[in-house]
C-alpha cells in the first residue's frame, strides 16, 4: 500500500506557517527565556508573527488555488480576510502590550492559578510583574482564525474552530482586576462554546452522511444533484448554528455581553474584531461555496436570524448601563447587519454580485472601529480599573476633549453616520441586499440602525452635554502602543468614510471563492 503525498503549496501556506511558527517560538520563549526580558521579547515575537502574517498575505494577493490536498482554498476572499485578521490582531497585540495605563503595568493577571480574593492574590495585585503567556495564546488563536477563513473542508474548518476557540477561552479569564467576573466569563464562554462546537461537529457528521464527503466542493455537487436533502438541510442548520454562535448572532448571542464585559478589555477588542471576521469568513464560504446552488436551504434561515439579531442587539443595547455590555449588544446588532450583506448572494453562476465584497468591507470597517472604541475604554479609569459604567463618563469632554472626540468618532461610525467607515459599510451591505430583492430586510435594518443610534448617541450626550461628576474617573495618558492603535483606527475610520474607493475596489477584486 502506498500513500500519496498531498500537493502542498508552501507559498500559499506561508502566512499560516508564519503565524503558527511565531506562536511556537512564543511558547519556547515562555519556557526558556529569562523572566525579566520575556515581555519585550514576547511582544516582539507576536508583532513579527502578526505583521509577518499580514505582509505574506498581501504578497499572496491575486492567488486562487486549492492546496493541501484540497483542504485549503487560498483565494481572493481568503487572502483579504486573512490580511484583515492579521492586521487587526497586530493592533490588538499592541493593546495587550500597553504598560502605562494600569498602575500595575499590565491588564493581565500575574498568576491565573491563584484563587481570586485569596491572600496571595491580594499580594500579587500590586506586583509589577507581568505575565506573558497571553501572547503565544493569541498567536495560536490568530492562526486558527486565518485557517478558519481558508478552510475548504468541513473537518479542517472544525479543527480551525477549535484552534481559535480554546486560546480565546483561556485569555478571557486572565483579567487582572475583577477576576471573578473574568473567570466567570471564561467558564461561560467555554461551556457555551463547547456546545456550539458540538453542534458544528454533528452538522459535519450529518452532511458527511448525506454526501459522503466533507469537502465543500463535493458537498456543492451533491447539493446541486439533490442528494439526501433532509439530512443535508439538517446538517447545514447545525453547521450554521455553530458558526453563528462564534459570530455572536442572536439568538446565539447570550454569551456575548458577559464575556465582553468580563474579559480584559484588550482581549474583548481582539474578540470583537478578529473573531467576527473569522466567523463571517467561514459563514460566507460555507454558504456560498458549499450551499450556493441551493439558496433556498439557507436564505430563509439567514433572513430570519438577521432580523432577530438586529432587533435584539438594538433593543437590548438600549437598556445597558455598562459600556462594554453596550458595545457587546452593538456587536450583536452589527452581526445582523453583516448577515444582510450575506443575503446579497447573487445566485450561483453570477460572480459579479456585491454581497461578498460588501460583507468583507463591512468586516474590515467594523473591526477597525470597534477595536478603536475598546481602546478608548481602556483609557478611562477609576480606582479599581476601567470606568465602564455609563454614569462615570458624564462630562468626559470637559476632562479630556480629545478622548471624547475620538470616542464620538467611533460611536458615530458605529451608528453609520456618513463620512465615517460605518456608513460606507452599511451602504455596501444594504445595497447588496436591495439588489437581491431583500428590501424589506434592508428597511428593518435601517430602522434597527436608528434604534441603535440612540444608545450610541446617549454616550455622546453624556460626554458632551452633561456636567462631570465630582469624583469622576481619570483619563490615563496612553503609552506608545495604545496611541498607535487609536491613531490607526481613527484615521482608518475617517479614510474609509471619506475616500473608500480604493479599498472598495480591493474588496471587489478579492471577492472570489475557489473550490
Amino acid at each position, binding site marked *: 500500500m502506498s500513500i500519496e503525498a498531498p500537493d502542498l503549496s508552501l507559498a500559499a501556506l506561508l502566512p499560516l506557517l508564519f503565524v503558527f511558527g511565531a506562536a511556537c517560538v512564543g511558547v519556547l520563549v515562555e519556557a526558556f527565556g529569562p523572566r525579566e526580558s520575556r515581555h519585550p521579547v514576547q511582544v516582539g515575537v507576536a508583532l513579527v508573527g502578526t505583521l509577518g502574517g499580514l505582509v505574506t498575505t498581501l504578497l499572496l494577493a491575486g492567488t486562487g488555488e486549492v492546496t493541501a490536498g484540497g483542504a485549503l482554498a487560498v483565494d481572493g476572499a481568503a487572502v483579504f480576510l486573512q490580511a484583515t485578521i492579521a492586521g487587526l490582531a497586530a493592533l490588538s497585540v499592541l493593546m495587550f502590550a500597553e504598560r502605562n495605563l494600569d498602575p500595575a503595568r499590565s491588564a493581565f493577571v500575574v498568576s491565573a492559578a491563584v484563587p481570586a480574593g485569596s491572600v496571595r492574590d491580594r499580594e500579587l495585585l500590586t506586583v509589577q510583574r507581568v505575565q506573558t503567556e497571553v501572547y503565544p495564546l493569541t498567536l495560536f488563536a490568530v492562526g486558527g482564525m486565518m485557517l478558519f477563513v481558508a478552510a475548504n473542508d468541513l473537518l479542517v474548518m472544525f479543527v480551525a474552530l477549535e484552534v481559535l476557540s480554546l486560546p480565546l477561552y483561556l485569555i478571557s479569564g486572565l483579567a487582572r482586576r475583577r477576576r471573578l467576573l473574568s473567570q466567570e466569563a471564561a467558564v461561560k464562554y467555554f461551556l457555551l462554546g463547547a456546545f456550539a462546537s458540538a453542534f458544528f461537529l454533528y452538522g459535519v457528521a450529518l452532511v458527511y452522511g448525506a454526501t459522503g464527503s466533507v469537502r465543500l466542493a463535493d458537498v456543492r455537487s451533491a447539493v446541486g444533484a439533490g442528494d439526501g436533502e433532509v439530512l443535508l438541510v439538517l446538517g447545514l442548520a447545525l453547521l450554521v448554528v455553530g458558526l453563528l454562535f462564534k459570530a455572536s448572532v442572536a439568538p446565539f448571542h447570550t454569551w456575548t455581553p458577559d464575556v465582553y464585559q468580563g474579559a480584559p478589555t484588550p482581549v474583548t477588542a481582539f474578540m470583537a474584531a478578529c473573531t467576527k471576521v473569522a466567523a463571517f469568513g467561514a459563514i460566507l464560504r460555507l454558504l456560498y461555496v458549499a450551499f450556493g446552488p441551493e439558496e433556498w436551504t439557507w436564505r430563509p434561515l439567514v433572513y430570519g436570524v438577521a432580523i432577530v439579531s438586529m432587533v435584539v442587539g438594538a433593543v437590548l443595547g438600549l437598556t445597558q448601563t455598562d459600556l462594554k455590555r453596550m458595545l457587546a449588544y452593538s456587536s450583536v446588532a452589527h452581526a445582523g447587519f453583516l448577515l444582510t450583506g450575506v443575503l446579497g448572494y447573487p445566485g450561483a453562476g453570477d460572480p459579479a454580485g456585491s454581497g461578498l465584497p460588501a460583507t468583507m468591507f463591512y468586516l474590515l470597517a467594523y473591526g477597525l472601529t470597534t477595536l478603536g472604541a475598546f481602546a478608548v475604554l481602556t483609557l478611562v479609569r477609576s480606582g479599581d480599573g476601567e470606568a465602564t459604567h455609563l454614569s462615570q463618563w458624564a462630562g468626559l469632554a*470637559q476632562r479630556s476633549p480629545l478622548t471624547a472626540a475620538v470616542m464620538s468618532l467611533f460611536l458615530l461610525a458605529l451608528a453609520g*453616520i456618513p463620512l465615517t467607515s460605518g456608513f460606507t459599510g452599511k451602504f455596501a451591505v444594504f445595497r447588496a441586499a436591495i439588489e437581491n430583492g431583500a428590501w424589506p430586510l434592508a428597511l428593518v435594518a435601517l430602522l434597527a440602525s436608528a434604534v441603535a443610534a*440612540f444608545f450610541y448617541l446617549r454616550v455622546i450626550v453624556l460626554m458632551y452635554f452633561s456636567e462631570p461628576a465630582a469624583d469622576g474617573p481619570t483619563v490615563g495618558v496612553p503609552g506608545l502602543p495604545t496611541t498607535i492603535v487609536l491613531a490607526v483606527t481613527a484615521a482608518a475610520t475617517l479614510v474609509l468614510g471619506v475616500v473608500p474607493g480604493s479599498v472598495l475596489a480591493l474588496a471587489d477584486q478579492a471577492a472570489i471563492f475557489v473550490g
Partner: protein
Amino acid sequence: MSDSLLLLAMLVVPALGAAVVAALPGDREATAKQAALGVSLVVLVLAVLAALAFDPDGERFQLTSSVPWIPGFGVDFALGVDGIALVMLLLVGVLVPVVVLASWRDTSPGRRSMRTFFAWLLLLEACMVGVFAATDVFLFYVFFEAMLVPMYFIVGSFGGPRRQYAAVKFFLYSLVGGLVMLAAVIGLYVVSEAAGEGTFSFTALNDLDIDPTAQRLLFLGFFVAFAIKAPLVPLHTWLPDAGAEAPIGGAVLLVGVLDKVGTFGFLRYCLPLFPDASREFAPLVLVLAVAGILYAALLAMGQSDMKRLVSYTSIAHFGFIALGVFAFTTEAGTGAVLYMVNHGIATGLLFLVVGMLIARGGSRLVGDYGGVAAHAPKLAGVFLVAGLASLALPGTNSFVSEFLVLIGSFPTRPVFTVLATVGIVLAALYVLLLYQRTMHGPPRGVLFPADDDATAGTAVPEPGHAAGATAASPAGVTTTGTAGTATLTRAAGVATRVRDLSRREVAVVAPLVALVLVLGVYPQPLVRLVEPAVAATMSDVGAGTPDSSEGTD
C-alpha cells in the same frame, strides 16, 4: 477663479474655517468670532458671485463640476445649482453672518467655549451649502445626514435647560427619516442599474422611466425623510422642542435653512424623479399641508413660550410651502420657493428679535413681558416688522410669496386653497397677540421689577431671572431681581433693565429688515432666478402650464 469652482469654494471655505476656529487655543474667543464672521462674509461674497455668474435663461444646472468619488458605488462628487438651489445658497450666505453677529455676546451654559459654537456653525454652513449644491443623490444624502451632527452639538451644548432631550429628539427624528431615505436612495440606484448603468447622477436619474410600483415605494422613502425635515404635521413634534431649546443663532438656522431642505427635497427629488407617484400622493400631501397650516396656527396661539410659538408659526408656514409645491402649477411652485427664502428671512428676524428680548429679560415666557415698546422703541419696531412679515402683510416679502402660492393653487386645488386662507387670519391673530402682549400695555413682567411688588401673585418665579437681569445690567446695580429686595424706583429699574437695541444688534437686524422691505416691493430678481427652474420641475412632473406663468411677471 473659474465659475465652476465657486460652489466648491463655498463648500471648502467654511469647512476649513471651522477647522481653523476649532484649532484656535481656548482663550482666543475674540479671534474665533472675528474669524467666523470673516469666513461667513467670504461665503456670502461667493454666493453673490455665483448668482451673478448664473444665467437664468441658460442650462438648468449651471456652475457644475464633477469628479468621481467612490467609483465602486458609481458616486460622483458632483456640484451644480439650478435657480432654486441658488436662492437657497444666497439665503445661507446672508443668514450665517447675521447669526454670527447675533451670537457675539452669547455665553454658553457650563464651562464650554463659544469658540466651539462658531466652529460648529461654520461646519454647519459647509454642510448646508453641500446639501443644496449636490447634484448627485448620494452626495446629497451624505450632506443631508452629516448636517445633523453640527446642529446636534449646537443644540445639545449651547441650548436651553432641556437641551439634551431636544438635541436627541431632533437627531433621532431626522436620522430615522434619513435612514428610510437611504433605502430609497439605494433603491433608486438599483432601478437605474436594472435600466442600464447604475448611477446616482440627478440628470441621469431624471431621464429614467421608473415603473409605478417602484415609484410609489421610492417616493414614500424620500417623502418620509423630507416630511420629517420640513416638517409636515404628524411628524413635526421635534421642531418646537428643538426650536425652543436651541440657542437663538441655532434656531434661526434650524428653521430658516435646515428645514427648507425638506421642501427643497420635495421640489428637487420627489417631483422630478417620481412624477406619477407625486401626482398620486398629492391629495394626501395637501391634506397634511393644510392640516398643518390650521393646526399649527391654533397651537401657536396657545403657546406661552415665545420660541415655541415661533417654531409653531414655522410649521404653519411649511404647510403653505408644501401646498405650493404639490399644487403643480408654476406660479404656486415659484411662490413656494420664494416662500422658502422669505420665511427664512422673516422668521429668522422674528427669532432674532425674540432672542434679543429674552437676552434682556432672561425668560422665554410671553407673560413675563409687557409694555416694552415705550422703553425700547427700536426693539419694538423691529419686532413689529418681523411680525408683520410673518403674517404676510402686503409690502413685506412674505406677502408676495403667500399670494403667489394661493393664486397659483386656486385653479387646481380650490378647496385646499380656501382652507389655507383661513390660516392667514390665524397668522394675524397669533402674531398680533404676541406683539400686543409683550410690547404694549402697562409695563410689567421681569423687565420691570418695581411692578413685581404689585403683581407678585402672578409673577412666576424662575431661576433664570436673576442671571438674565444682571447680565442685562452692566451698570452693576446690586439688585438680585427677586421681588422682595427690589427696592429700586421704577425709573432706575427701567433705565438699567430695558436697553434699546445696541449698535451691534441694529447691525444684526438691519440687513434682514432691508430684505423684508426690498423683496416685498421688488421681488423680480428672485422670481427671475427661480421661475425657469420651477417651470422645468413642473414639466418633469407633467403638470406645468408654461404659458400661464406669464402672470407672475
